[in-house]
C-alpha cells in the first residue's frame, strides 16, 4: 500500500521490516504536502530541511539499533507547541515573528522518541474557535468538502491527518478543540485527563482546561502516541505525578461487560437527527460486542457551555496579558507612551475573536462582577464535575455524539458567537471536569463524517483506547479516505 495511506502502526512495521526508510517516507509526505496543501491551508510552516535531517538521523539510529517508539515516523505539531528555532505563531499576527527559543515538553519527548516533524499546523488564533476561521493565516478547509470547515481549533492537524498528508498530529483541547475537528474530518482525537500530558511550552489559553492530545487515524495509533506524550513534568505545576501505563498492552482485550452510560439530560435541541442516529448505531455496535448500556444523569450538563464561557475567557484574559509588545511578539510603531504601546500592539496583534474573549474575561473578573460570574461559574463547574463523579459510580464510560452536526460551511456561523460556542456542547463537560475523552469516526451524514464521543473517569485513557480500538475492529469508518486525497 502507498506509504501515505498507512497508519502510524503500519508505518512503524514498514520501517522495522525495512520496506522503506524514514527519509523515503518523509520525502513522500513532504511531496504530498507541497502538492496538496494549497487546497487545504492545513500548514502554517513546513519544515522540509529539518524533517529530512531528522529522518536521516532516525535511519542512522535504527541501523545502530536505537529504535525509539516513534523512530522515523513523520508527524505534525499544532502551531501552539513551542519548537526551538522554528516559527511558533499560535495562529496569530501577534506571534507571526516569534521563533521559539525552546521546545515544549511534548515536542522534546516526541523528538527523543525519534519522531520527525513535517511542520506546524494551522489553528484558530490562540486556539479560540471551533471552525479554524479565526486564524490569522486564513481558514483550513475540510478534505471531505473544501467548502466546509474542518472544525477547530486543531483544524490544521485534523485536516492534515484526514487528507493523508501526515499519519498523526498533535493537538490541544480546551473545550473540544481536538475532538470536534476529529469528528468533522473522520479522524480519531483523544484529549487525555487534565495533567496527564505536560502543558510546558504549549501556549496557554485557559490553563485549568487546556490539555494536549493527538489526532490520528486509529485508536491504536493514539495509544502509541500517548505512551510517548504522557508523564509527569516538573516544569508544569499542574502535571500529575502518576506512572504511565503501556497504553497498547490492553487494547486487544474484549469490551464484554463494559458499562456504557448514555446521558438522559443531553438536550437534543440543536442535534441534527442523523448525527444523533449514527452515535446510537455505534453504541448498538458496542452492545453487540458485549457492552451494556445504562442511562445516567448529568442534571447540570446543559450549563457547561455558559460555565465555560466565563471560566475560559477569564483565564484567557490573564494568560494573554503577557503579550505587551515589549519582550516578544508584535509591537506597534511610533507609540506615544507606554500605555499607547500596550493598547495598540494588542489592538493590532489580536484578531476579533481573541479580543472578544479577552474582554469577556476582563469583564467577568472586574471589580463588582467577580463573584457574580467567575466564582459562580467555578461553583457550577464543581456541580458538573460532581455529576460526572456520581455517573462513573455506575458506568465505565459515557457515550454520545461528539458534535451536534457534521461539518458546516465556512462562513456559516462566523457572525454569531453563541451559535459557534454551542458546537462544543457535548465536549466541554470533559474539560470542565478534567476527564479524558475521545472521538472516533462512526459513520457519515450526507457524505460528511461524524464522530462517537467517549468520556471516561480520570486516568481512564486505557479503557477509552480499548473501547475505541475494539470498535474499530468491528467497523471500518476510520479507514474511509476523502476521494480527492486518495
Amino acid at each position: 500500500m502507498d506509504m501515505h495511506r498507512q497508519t502510524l502502526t503500519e508505518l512503524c512495521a514498514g520501517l522495522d521490516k525495512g520496506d522503506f526508510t524514514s527519509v523515503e517516507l518523509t520525502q513522500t509526505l513532504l511531496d504530498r504536502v507541497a502538492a496538496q496543501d494549497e487546497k487545504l491551508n492545513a500548514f502554517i510552516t513546513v519544515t522540509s530541511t529539518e524533517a529530512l535531517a531528522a529522518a536521516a538521523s532516525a535511519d542512522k539510529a535504527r541501523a545502530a539499533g536505537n529504535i525509539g517508539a516513534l523512530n522515523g515516523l513523520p508527524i505534525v505539531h499544532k502551531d501552539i507547541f513551542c519548537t526551538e528555532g522554528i516559527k511558533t505563531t499560535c495562529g496569530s499576527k501577534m506571534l507571526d515573528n516569534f521563533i521559539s527559543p525552546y521546545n515544549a515538553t511534548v515536542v522534546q519527548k516526541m523528538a527523543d522518541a525519534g519522531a520527525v516533524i513535517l511542520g506546524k499546523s494551522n489553528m484558530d488564533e490562540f486556539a479560540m474557535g471551533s471552525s479554524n476561521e479565526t486564524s490569522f493565516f486564513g481558514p483550513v478547509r475540510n478534505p471531505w468538502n473544501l467548502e466546509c470547515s474542518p472544525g477547530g481549533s486543531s483544524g490544521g492537524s485534523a485536516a492534515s491527518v484526514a487528507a493523508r498528508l501526515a499519519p498523526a498530529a498533535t493537538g490541544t483541547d480546551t473545550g473540544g478543540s481536538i475532538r470536534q475537528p476529529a469528528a468533522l474530518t473522520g479522524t480519531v482525537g483523544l484529549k487525555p485527563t487534565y495533567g496527564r500530558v505536560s502543558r510546558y511550552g504549549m501556549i496557554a489559553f485557559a490553563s485549568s482546561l487546556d490539555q494536549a492530545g493527538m489526532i490520528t487515524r486509529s485508536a491504536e495509533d493514539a495509544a502509541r502516541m500517548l505512551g510517548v506524550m504522557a508523564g509527569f513534568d516538573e516544569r508544569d505545576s499542574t502535571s500529575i505525578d502518576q506512572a504511565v501505563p503501556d497504553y497498547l498492552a490492553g487494547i486487544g482485550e474484549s469490551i464484554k461487560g463494559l458499562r456504557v452510560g448514555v446521558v438522559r439530560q443531553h438536550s437534543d435541541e440543536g442535534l441534527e437527527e442523523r448525527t444523533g442516529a449514527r452515535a446510537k448505531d455505534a453504541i448498538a455496535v458496542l452492545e453487540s460486542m458485549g457492552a451494556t448500556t445504562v442511562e445516567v444523569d448529568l442534571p447540570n450538563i446543559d450549563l457547561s457551555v455558559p460555565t465555560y464561557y466565563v471560566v475560559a475567557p477569564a483565564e484567557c484574559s490573564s494568560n494573554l496579558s503577557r503579550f505587551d509588545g515589549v519582550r516578544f511578539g508584535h509591537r506597534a510603531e511610533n507609540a506615544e507612551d507606554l500605555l499607547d504601546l500596550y493598547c495598540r500592539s494588542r489592538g493590532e496583534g489580536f484578531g476579533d475573536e481573541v479580543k472578544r474573549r479577552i474582554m469577556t474575561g476582563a469583564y467577568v473578573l472586574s471589580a463588582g462582577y467577580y463573584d457574580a460570574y467567575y466564582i459562580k461559574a467555578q461553583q457550577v463547574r464543581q456541580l458538573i464535575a460532581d455529576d460526572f463523579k456520581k455517573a462513573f459510580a455506575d458506568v465505565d464510560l459515557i457515550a454520545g455524539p461528539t458534535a451536534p452536526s457534521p461539518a458546516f460551511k465556512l462562513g456559516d456561523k462566523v457572525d454569531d458567537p453563541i451559535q459557534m460556542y454551542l458546537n462544543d456542547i457535548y465536549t466541554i463537560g470533559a474539560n470542565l471536569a478534567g476527564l479524558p475523552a475521545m472521538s472516533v469516526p462512526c459513520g457519515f451524514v450526507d457524505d460528511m463524517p461524524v464522530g462517537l464521543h467517549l468520556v471516561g473517569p480520570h486516568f481512564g485513557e486505557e479503557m477509552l483506547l480499548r473501547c475505541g480500538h475494539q470498535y474499530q475492529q468491528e467497523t471500518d469508518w476510520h479507514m474511509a479516505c476523502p476521494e480527492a486525497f486518495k
Partner: protein
Amino acid sequence: MSLDKEQVQHIAMLARLNLSDEEYAESVEKLSKIVDFVDQLSAVDTTDVVPMAHPVDAAQRLRPDDVTATNDRDHYQQNAPEVVDGLYLVPKVLE
C-alpha cells in the same frame, strides 16, 4: 443590550486593547449577547458549593528552593522588538 459603549470602553481599557469605532459597535452587540448567555448561571442554586480549585483535586506541588535554571538572556531576547545592552526598550515613562 446589557452592555453600553461606555462599559465596553472601560473593559477595553482594563484589557489594554485599542479598538476602532467599528470594533466598538460590534463589541457592544456581541459582548452583550455573550453576557446575556452566561447570565443563565445566576439562576442556579449554588448555596454551600465550594468553587472548584483544581479539576483533578490535586494540591499545589512545592519544590526545594534550589537554583535550577541558568540565565539565558541573550538567547531569549532574540525575539524582543527593541533591546539595548540586554535591556528592553519602551517609550519614555518619566520626563
